[in-house]
């Protein structure tokens, strides 16, 4: 019996959280994070003599909310999406960035918010397999044209981006998309447009799915993350990517509220967004920098012809504000539409 109790105590202790821990930075994982570890994280740790650990997550900030509420903050610096950042900032999930440590003027327009410093850009655009279909749709209007471009299409499962695409396909100019989508008629128009393509549509959930489908020929044309497309093309896959169909946004570095390493975290963000380290990173991996000096550097642009920031002037910047205001409503309607 006594041994039982001792074992119980030991196990409960093992289940209890560890107290002291290293500065922890969290991002989406994959090969990019491997490169970041080597080029960004480790030099910072060496230079400032701060032990640093990195972890990965699936861009679901639920656990971050929980750790803030539980006052058991185990992450310090996290790469987050814009709407999560904005909402998390309003709800006090993230610290405000200390702009005395991180120079705010180094970022592209829209590259900062109260709680976030621009990390990397990402976007989606139409792509297809050039061997199977040498001529593919170059605009969303053509994407909807099943006469000229027969075959199945794949869009992302969710209202965000999909509804913008539906309006763009219907001839709404890029600058007008969010104004139109904010009106009931605009919303009806977007869903009606989706209805018209529905028999030819599939919806993907994971970012790899559209590439698998296009690769196997299950789908002729799809929208997919441009970063993945660029990597596949660099690896020699015969994909065509239509930059005129780009919808893009930025991910941001943020500091979890209540982090015991707040000051070190701010310094880390300053390092992660500084010019020199990012140039280094761009040499080993195609990134879409939000730091203006790197993004606009002709040498970097020339060295990375598939860099998204080369094409942002042709794309639509996904509106964080719009989706915070209409996300719940439209996502629900989208789900209802999918369910019909």
């Amino acid at each position, binding site marked *: 019996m006594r041994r039982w109790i001792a074992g119980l105590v030991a196990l409960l202790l093992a289940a209890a959280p560890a107290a002291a821990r290293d500065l922890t930075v969290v991002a989406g994982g994959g090969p990019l994070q491997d490169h970041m570890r080597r080029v960004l994280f480790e030099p910072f740790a060496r230079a400032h003599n701060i032990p640093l650990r990195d972890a990965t997550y699936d861009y*679901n900030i*639920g656990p971050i*909310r929980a750790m803030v509420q539980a006052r058991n903050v185990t992450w310090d610096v996290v790469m987050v999406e814009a709407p999560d950042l904005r*909402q998390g*900032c*309003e*709800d*006090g999930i993230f610290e405000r960035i200390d702009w005395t440590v991180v120079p705010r003027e180094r970022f592209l327009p829209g590259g900062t918010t109260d709680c976030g410093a621009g990390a990397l850009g990402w976007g989606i655009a139409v792509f297809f397999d050039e061997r199977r279909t040498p001529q593919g749709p170059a605009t969303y209007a053509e994407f909807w044209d099943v006469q000229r471009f027969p075959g199945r299409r794949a869009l992302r*499962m969710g209202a965000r981006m999909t509804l913008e695409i539906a309006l763009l396909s219907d001839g709404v100019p890029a600058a007008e998309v969010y104004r139109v989508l*904010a009106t009931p008629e605009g919303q*009806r128009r977007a*869903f009606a447009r989706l209805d018209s393509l529905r028999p030819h549509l599939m*919806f993907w959930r994971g970012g790899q799915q559209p590439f698998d489908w296009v690769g*196997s020929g*299950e789908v002729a044309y799809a929208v997919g993350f441009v970063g993945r497309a660029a990597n596949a093309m660099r690896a020699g896959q015969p994909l065509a990517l239509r930059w005129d169909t780009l919808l893009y946004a930025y991910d941001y570095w943020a500091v979890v509220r209540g982090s015991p390493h707040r000051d070190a975290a701010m310094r880390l963000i300053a390092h992660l967004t500084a010019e020199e380290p990012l140039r280094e990173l761009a040499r080993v991996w195609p990134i879409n920098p939000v730091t203006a000096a790197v993004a606009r550097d002709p040498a970097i642009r020339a060295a990375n012809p598939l860099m998204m920031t080369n094409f942002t002037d042709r794309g639509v910047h996904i509106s964080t*504000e719009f989706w*915070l*205001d*209409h*996300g*719940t*409503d439209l*996502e*629900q*309607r989208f*789900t*209802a*539409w*999918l*369910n019909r």
Partner: protein
Amino acid sequence: MRRGGIAAFLLVLPLLLLLVLSFALPVGRMLWTAVADPELSDTLPDTAAVLRAWNGEGLPPEEAFAHLARELGAALADRRLGPLAQRLNFEQPGLRALLLRTARAAGELREAPRERLIALDPRWGEAELWRLLRSAAGPVTALYLLRAVDLRLGPAGGIEAVAEEEAIYRTLFLRTLWIAALVTALCVVLAYPVAAALAALPQRLAAWGLVLVLVPFWTSVLVRTTAWFVLLQREGPLNAAAIALGLIEHPLQLIGTRFAVVAAMVHVLLPFAILPAYAVMRRLDPALPRAAASLGAGAVARFFRVHLPLSFPGVAAGGAMVFLLAVGYYITPALVGGPRDQMVASFIAFFLSQTPNWGMAAALSLLLLAMTGAAALAARALLPGFGRRE
């Protein structure tokens, strides 16, 4: 005896505390969340007090505007505005933007708040918006429960159906019931021959046969669902086998279909139907079918007049168990189902993590719980002894 009673109570107490603190209270609290409406009165207490006293006609008194501007500004500064913005935006999309804009302008609204608020956004001059705020001043709201059955409070105060393109939950509940019923029926039908065959075997052989049922029963649901996920792939073994046998020419899309969900759910839940049916059939007096035969009953009459009615309690208990589990199912539809195969549970999960809306999560939970509770009570009424152990 008294001392014994106290000692017994002390033995039970730790577990009782655990169950109350870590189950009963949380469940109760969550059900309360389904109707609780604390955001406005927490974030804007003075505004809420004025609104509660207001009779709802025309515009509220001047002080409501003043409190609103001041408290919104303070909430934004303290970063407490999120929950309220979300709550109001859920009821009427667009209110989040209005609140934020108003809160940011709070500094300029100190003088003549009423005029300046209306100047900032004409909606502040509309009685409808103020009535909406008043109804959100708590302490309870039917908002989430109504929305969970595709209803809402209209601007005039009455209950109305939501727009057709937003209606989703009634279909969802019907679909959940339908899938659960279908899975239950299939489980019962498939379980019967297994249980009957095992019960007809001699005890030793039956014990081995039972192990064949217990192996899947003990195997993790995730492992089993993963197995189905792999089997049903486009390039997966099932399609490959069907093509090799010449049944189909091109691989079928199986993942993301109702077929996949039902097949995997039946697979996961079948042991729950087999085990009670077997237990009852095993206990069945073998003399009874013999008696029926001696009284002139042929095989068919023996099955329908004796075997079936006598094994019914076990079959029905298994069926009830399958139904109760199936109604709340989450993993299997999430992994092998498509958007048209999701059940209530996946929407609860959606509102818990993807789009946090605890009121909706709680309202859907409340309805789901009511559904399972009704099913359990029905099973209890139909089957004396259900839920009680022999």
